[in-house]
């Protein structure tokens, strides 16, 4: 172990040697994670939604008035989300924990309270804290009961302190709203479409609407295209319609004083005059005639020109607001778009790249929920209004009308809307005509890593089926933001990504103050400018979130000043600013969803973070936010990164350097961070491991034994890896040191002693040889927990299910089938249940629909047995039984089965280098080779796994692991660092081993030494969830499908093994006709039919119904499916006739 890995030494070394000391700057990473955490994006986004957006939405939909009574109104004064509480109105203690929700299939949600002001009779009433519905609460968000709790308190709530949170519990299942990747809104993107047409497009997005506007070139002329207009509008006409009628002014706005632009733009100007559009009125009429007629019938017809004006003002480029018909900013914007298009025609390098990460925005739970809430809230209000009108319409009322009572009746709409959306993952928004499926996923609790990996996952809106390489490729701009390794293989490859370790996703920052700051720093207002100033060579156009603010003539100074203000902490650190020298633009961005990461600021070739800072950090005198506040570290988004010179290491700093990386290994994500020495591996191997790490069995959470999950895999003796990485420590996959010096463990694997050699021939194709004694001693032993649920229902007619005690036969004995039942009718905890035995002896009423007489005992309706029977090949133990009730007061019985499994032939294992293999043979210890120390391996791995895979990292892991074992300490395999091979070899030599890790082994069978030195040492192995016990399947006879009478399909239905088309082709090729007949008919769905030889139709029982005779009936065997086909054809009026011949 080199000293730089050890935190304690940092400060000492630093004092004497300032240059190398900032090597310890990686301490900023744990500090960052402490503040931000791995799922901070989700929490930040949700908190922002609950604390800010909720109010904004309500403010935008503040007032409800009645069409009937003009005096009536209802006004929302405020909104807030309460703390999570039970929905049960009778509950004494309303607080509940997330774990209770998991166990009882509840939704972890809190009431939404509003303050209202409304008219009651002649009074104006104000009511505060009126609940209007319930919203699911994100775990560990500001509104979660777990936030800010100590470990002891969390333990009392049966919650794991290492659980990252960031997900929801809906109906008892943990649901994650995955991060959605989208093209950024409100930004101009210049692209070339399939036909080679260059177009600038902007997706405008406001609270009210989403629309896309294009400016494109067609036959050298420039047009404006928008969905609300039936055909492309010449852009000059559009500009004229917006009030810029003089051609000279238009030309100035688009071209400035440059001749080249004017030449390209002239045809467009000419077209407008050719179309005889000169004035604003003419232009509006021109557009008005082409507006899409999607008006609702009720709306009064308006003049086409008014309609055009309306559309231009609020639909086209909707994100630019037009105040009092001041179209000037919008005209400027269109002019800039046109200019971009013209510039791109002559220089295609100016095309934008839509895969560039800077052009992407990530949509998180908060944004999605906010869209959903706005929709639900609007629906809630319109429903409320309808109801109010209905009541107010009545001429005479017995009671004074109080909306309050009405308000409470509609709560289910919002509650149900949230629950439905999160439970199904279908986001249906009427406003935007948006219908997205698969937004939420069940949080995978296969291993701790899989849960973490899910929280950092990003899905793309791209269709998975499309075979495009662009969006899937690794973008250089992903550096440090998105993990280059962690992506699935196959169809979603490159479309599903993962965040890197230090990534942060921004939330919206209010624009007003930024706008003011920009003007203070010398931006000239757009409204005061003409084209010549806009495009003068020294002028840079300043954009704020895609909207033109104005122009600066000193972009360098402006940007530097702006950054100075940000570094001083006067504005949000997440506001980015960068210069685009190609377009002569300065972009300021404060919108949410940008990806950014912290970097150390460098000026005058010196990083601002010094030894003292790091020392104070490790002493706990500074936290990450202090670094930010003091301007030592700043967040850069992808666009601003482009404007910076970032040095990877301190030694690389040159005069131009502006920033320094905090730590190179942070370009990997949490899942790829598990891999030791990933920089020595072939890159796809790291990707494979990222997929497999999520299937590894291990410890899941501290509350794993209190959980009742559908399927839970646990390792009996998990170990921390001998060779770990800094990432492992940080994400607490393993032991980690926090400020409290506490130890955390949640590993998923074991350190196996591996001999790399061939043995027995049962190790070909990556199969592994396992040592039986190791298995006896607990290696790879795992537990599988499976949940079974039964709902004890009550039916509408008053009948109900019941759980009955075990029945007895004539002798008074309990038959085998019911032997495991307790007197309460449910299997006893700790008991072993065999296949075919009943574990919940449920009985249901025979009649659940019809009314039973008043006063009649529901028990007298009669019951039928609907027991839950244990299926599966191996017996299980009953681990837990839970009796509880759901929100709807239905009794719920949950039962957890447990199996303890030792590895067997065919179980899958993998190292951390994408090297998976199944167990090929289990060998007695005495047959295993043994070393000079008497050590025999746990696993023998075939050396053929190495040359083609090129997983050198695995070899180094073995070496480092062996050295660690000998020295009695853990080694590091951190990416781009880690324990050095040279040091490891030294340790081996010092301990009397060969430097390269190869040992002298003797055969356990012959007792003679092996004729080669064997690479021998510990490698961390993961047991993967794929076990033969869950997969073995064979059948000779068995069930058949009802319709076709063919054998069923699939293991769960004890199905047959299909002789498929290709196998059929083989048999045909061999001419094995009898075998073919046997396989396809006799062993499948042979059926004896009676065919009438005279009419060729099927008869029945030797009788032809058509010929009304039994004279010419011939029995024959055909597949039942063929018989079905004939009958189906007959039903369609097609007569299939069978013409029989002698054979």
């Amino acid at each position: 172990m080199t000293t730089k890995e050890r935190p304690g030494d940092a400060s000492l070394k630093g004092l004497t040697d300032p240059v190398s000391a900032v090597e310890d700057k990686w301490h900023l990473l744990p500090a960052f994670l402490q503040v931000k955490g791995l799922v901070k994006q989700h929490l930040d986004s949700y908190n922002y939604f609950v604390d800010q957006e909720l109010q904004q939405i309500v403010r935008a939909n503040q007032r409800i008035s009645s069409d009937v009574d003009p005096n009536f109104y209802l006004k929302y004064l405020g909104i807030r989300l309460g703390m999570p509480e039970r929905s049960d109105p009778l509950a004494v203690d309303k607080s509940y924990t997330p774990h209770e929700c998991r166990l009882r299939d509840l939704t972890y949600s809190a009431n939404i309270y509003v303050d209202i002001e409304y008219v009651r009779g002649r009074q104006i009433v104000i009511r505060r804290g009126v609940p209007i519905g319930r919203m699911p609460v994100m775990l560990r968000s500001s509104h979660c009961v777990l936030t800010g709790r100590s470990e002891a308190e969390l333990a009392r709530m049966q919650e794991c302190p290492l659980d990252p949170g960031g997900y929801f519990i809906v109906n008892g299942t943990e649901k994650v709203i995955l991060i959605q990747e989208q093209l950024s809104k409100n930004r101009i993107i210049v692209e070339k479409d399939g036909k080679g047409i260059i177009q600038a497009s902007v997706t405008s997005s406001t609270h009210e609407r989403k629309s896309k506007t294009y400016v494109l070139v067609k036959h050298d002329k420039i047009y404006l295209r928008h969905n609300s207009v039936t055909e492309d509008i010449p852009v000059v006409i559009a500009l004229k319609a917006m009030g810029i009628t003089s051609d000279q002014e238009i030309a100035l706005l688009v071209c400035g004083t440059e001749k080249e632009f004017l030449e390209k733009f002239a045809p467009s100007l000419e077209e407008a005059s050719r179309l005889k559009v000169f004035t604003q009125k003419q232009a509006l009429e021109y557009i008005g005639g082409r507006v899409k007629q999607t008006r609702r019938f009720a709306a009064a017809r308006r003049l086409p020109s008014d309609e055009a004006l309306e559309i231009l003002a609020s639909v086209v480029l909707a994100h630019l607001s037009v105040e009092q018909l001041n179209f000037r900013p919008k005209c400027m914007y269109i002019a800039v778009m046109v200019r971009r298009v013209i510039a791109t025609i002559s220089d295609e390098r100016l095309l934008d790249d839509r895969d560039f990460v800077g052009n992407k925005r990530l949509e998180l739970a908060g944004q999605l929920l906010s869209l959903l809430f706005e929709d639900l809230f609007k629906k809630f209000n319109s429903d409320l209004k309808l109801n109010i009108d209905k009541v107010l319409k009545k001429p005479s009322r017995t009671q004074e009308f109080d909306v309050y009572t009405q308000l409470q009746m509609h709560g289910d709409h919002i509650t149900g809307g949230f629950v439905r959306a999160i439970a199904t993952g279908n986001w249906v928004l009427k406003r935007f005509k948006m219908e997205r499926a698969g937004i939420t996923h069940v949080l995978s609790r296969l291993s701790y890593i899989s849960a973490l990996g899910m929280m950092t996952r990003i899905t793309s809106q791209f269709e998975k089926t499309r075979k495009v390489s662009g969006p899937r490729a690794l973008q250089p701009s992903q550096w440090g933001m998105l993990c280059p390794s962690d992506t699935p293989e196959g169809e979603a490859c490159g479309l599903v990504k993962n965040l890197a370790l230090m990534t942060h996703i921004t939330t919206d920052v209010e624009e007003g103050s930024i706008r003011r700051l920009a003007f203070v720093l010398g931006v000239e207002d757009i409204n005061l400018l003409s084209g010549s100033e806009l495009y003068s060579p020294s002028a840079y156009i300043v954009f704020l979130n895609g909207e033109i603010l104005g122009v600066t003539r000193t972009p360098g100074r402006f940007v530097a000043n702006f950054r100075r203000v940000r570094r001083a902490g006067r504005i949000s650190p997440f506001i980015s600013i960068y210069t685009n020298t190609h377009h002569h633009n300065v972009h300021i961005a404060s919108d949410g969803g940008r990806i950014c990461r912290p970097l150390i600021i460098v000026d005058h070739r010196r990083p601002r973070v010094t030894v003292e800072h790091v020392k104070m950090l490790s002493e706990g005198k500074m936290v990450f936010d202090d670094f930010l506040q003091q301007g030592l570290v700043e967040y850069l988004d992808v666009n601003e990164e482009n404007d910076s010179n970032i040095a990877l290491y301190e030694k690389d700093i040159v005069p131009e350097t502006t920033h320094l990386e905090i730590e190179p290994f942070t370009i990997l994500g949490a899942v790829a961070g598990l891999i030791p020495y990933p920089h020595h591996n072939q890159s796809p191997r790291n990707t494979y491991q990222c997929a497999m790490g999520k299937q590894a069995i291990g410890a899941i959470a501290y509350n794993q034994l209190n959980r009742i999950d559908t399927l839970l895999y646990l390792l009996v003796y998990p170990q921390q890896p001998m060779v770990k990485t800094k990432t492992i420590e940080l994400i607490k996959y393993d032991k980690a040191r926090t400020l409290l010096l506490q130890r955390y463990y949640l590993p998923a694997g074991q350190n196996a002693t591996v001999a790399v050699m061939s043995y027995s021939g049962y190790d070909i194709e990556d199969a592994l040889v396992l040592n039986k004694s190791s298995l006896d001693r607990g290696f790879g032993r795992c537990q599988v927990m499976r949940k079974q649920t039964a709902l004890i229902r009550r039916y509408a007619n008053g009948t109900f299910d019941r759980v009955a005690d075990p029945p007895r036969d004539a002798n008074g004995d309990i038959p085998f089938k019911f032997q495991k039942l307790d007197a309460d009718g449910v299997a006893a905890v700790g008991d072993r249940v065999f296949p075919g035995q009943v574990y919940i002896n449920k009985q249901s009423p025979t009649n659940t629909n019809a009314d039973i007489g008043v006063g009649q005992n529901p028990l007298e309706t009669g019951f039928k047995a609907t027991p839950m029977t244990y299926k599966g090949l191996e017996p299980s133990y009953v681990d837990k039984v839970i009796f509880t009730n759901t929100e709807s007061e239905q009794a719920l019985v949950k039962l957890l089965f447990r199996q303890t499994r030792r590895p067997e032939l065919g179980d899958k294992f993998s190292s951390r280098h994408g090297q998976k293999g199944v167990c090929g043979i289990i060998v007695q210890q005495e047959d295993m080779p043994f070393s000079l120390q008497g050590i025999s391996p746990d696993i023998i791995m075939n050396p053929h796994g190495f040359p083609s895979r090129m997983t050198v990292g695995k070899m180094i892991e073995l070496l480092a692991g062996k050295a660690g074992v000998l020295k009695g300490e853990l080694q590091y395999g951190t990416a781009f660092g880690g324990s050095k091979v040279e040091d490891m070899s030294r340790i081996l030599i010092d301990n009397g081993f060969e430097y390269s890790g190869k040992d002298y082994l003797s055969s356990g069978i012959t007792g003679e030494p092996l004729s080669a030195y064997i690479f021998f040492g510990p490698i961390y192995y993961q047991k993967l969830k794929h076990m033969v016990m869950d997969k073995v399947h064979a059948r000779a006879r068995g069930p058949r499908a009802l319709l076709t009478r063919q054998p069923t399909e699939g293991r769960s239905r004890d199905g047959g093994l299909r002789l498929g088309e290709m196998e059929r082709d083989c048999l045909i090729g061999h001419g094995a006709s009898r075998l073919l007949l046997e396989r396809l008919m006799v062993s499948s769905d042979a059926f004896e039919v009676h065919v009438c030889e005279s009419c060729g139709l099927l008869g029945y029982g030797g009788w032809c119904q058509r010929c009304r005779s039994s004279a010419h009936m011939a029995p024959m065997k055909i597949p039942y499916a063929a018989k079905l086909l004939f009958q189906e054809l007959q039903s369609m009026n097609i007569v299939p006739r069978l013409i029989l011949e002698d054979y």
Partner: protein
Amino acid sequence: MIVLESDHVHNHYRPALQEWDLAEFTKTFRIDIIRVSPMAMEFDVVGTDAPIANALRRILIAEIPTMAIENVFMTNNTSVIHDEVLAHRLGLIPLKVDPSQFQWKGDADPTDLNTIVFKLNIRCEANPEWKEGDPVENRLINDRVLSSDLQWEPQGGQAERFSESPIKTVHDNILVAKLRPGQEIIGELHCEKGIGRDHAKFSPVATAFYRMMPVIAIKEDITGADADKFARCFTPGVIEVVKEKGKYRVRKARVADARKCTMSREALRHKEFQGKVALMHDPRHFLFSIESTGAMTAPELFLLSIKQLVQKCQVVKTALDKLTDEAES
């Protein structure tokens, strides 16, 4: 350096090609005991071949019976450890009992001649005498279930038969489970006789293995600073540097104790020693090591293993005799 030099890896040694001679064997064969204690022993087997040493090793690991917990009858277990895991852990606890005193159980009913019964009855409570400031580890009673908590329940004549050496676990500090106040484990544990081939818990040895005697041949003198470097390439004590007698008084490397050599082959890496040294093994000299798990002492195990080997030879011998008889008749 991937060299598979035949002079330091041997598995093509076939002395059996020569006629095996009993007289020669009795003259050369010897066993030197190097170190012996009840738990472990080291000895040299000289004058035989690898298969014989290996047979002993294999017998020790897999074929010498011991007693181990085989069946656990759990009456109550409210600890966090599941029944199967607890049973597995209990099974691995070595027991101090002479297995020759017991019969094989097989499918027979348990009797006092084939089964040992232990009771595990433990409940964790808060220590009423504990005060603030006392050591934290005393706060609870029975929060750690140790192997010493297994109580032997003599059955039938067992109390009498084992009155001299009562049956107990070898170690009394093996941690089996941890409890919290209110949790308890009550169960009855039945031990049976078994062999290591069936389950590692029956193996009487932690491990038994041998290695061949290293032979370090210095073909050419290694002197001066090279000699020191040469010595450093080996485990301390293997090579000594001595001053040669005579005129020049050269410092020279000499093999002091080859036994200590761990075959790191470090010397072969350095250019200056190339061709000057050969690392080899004596293929008829085995350094044997037995580490007992404690049921029987290491020397006992060695004798048992030889007895077992003789028995196996006799089985083969009788079978061979029968075969030759049949062939003759």
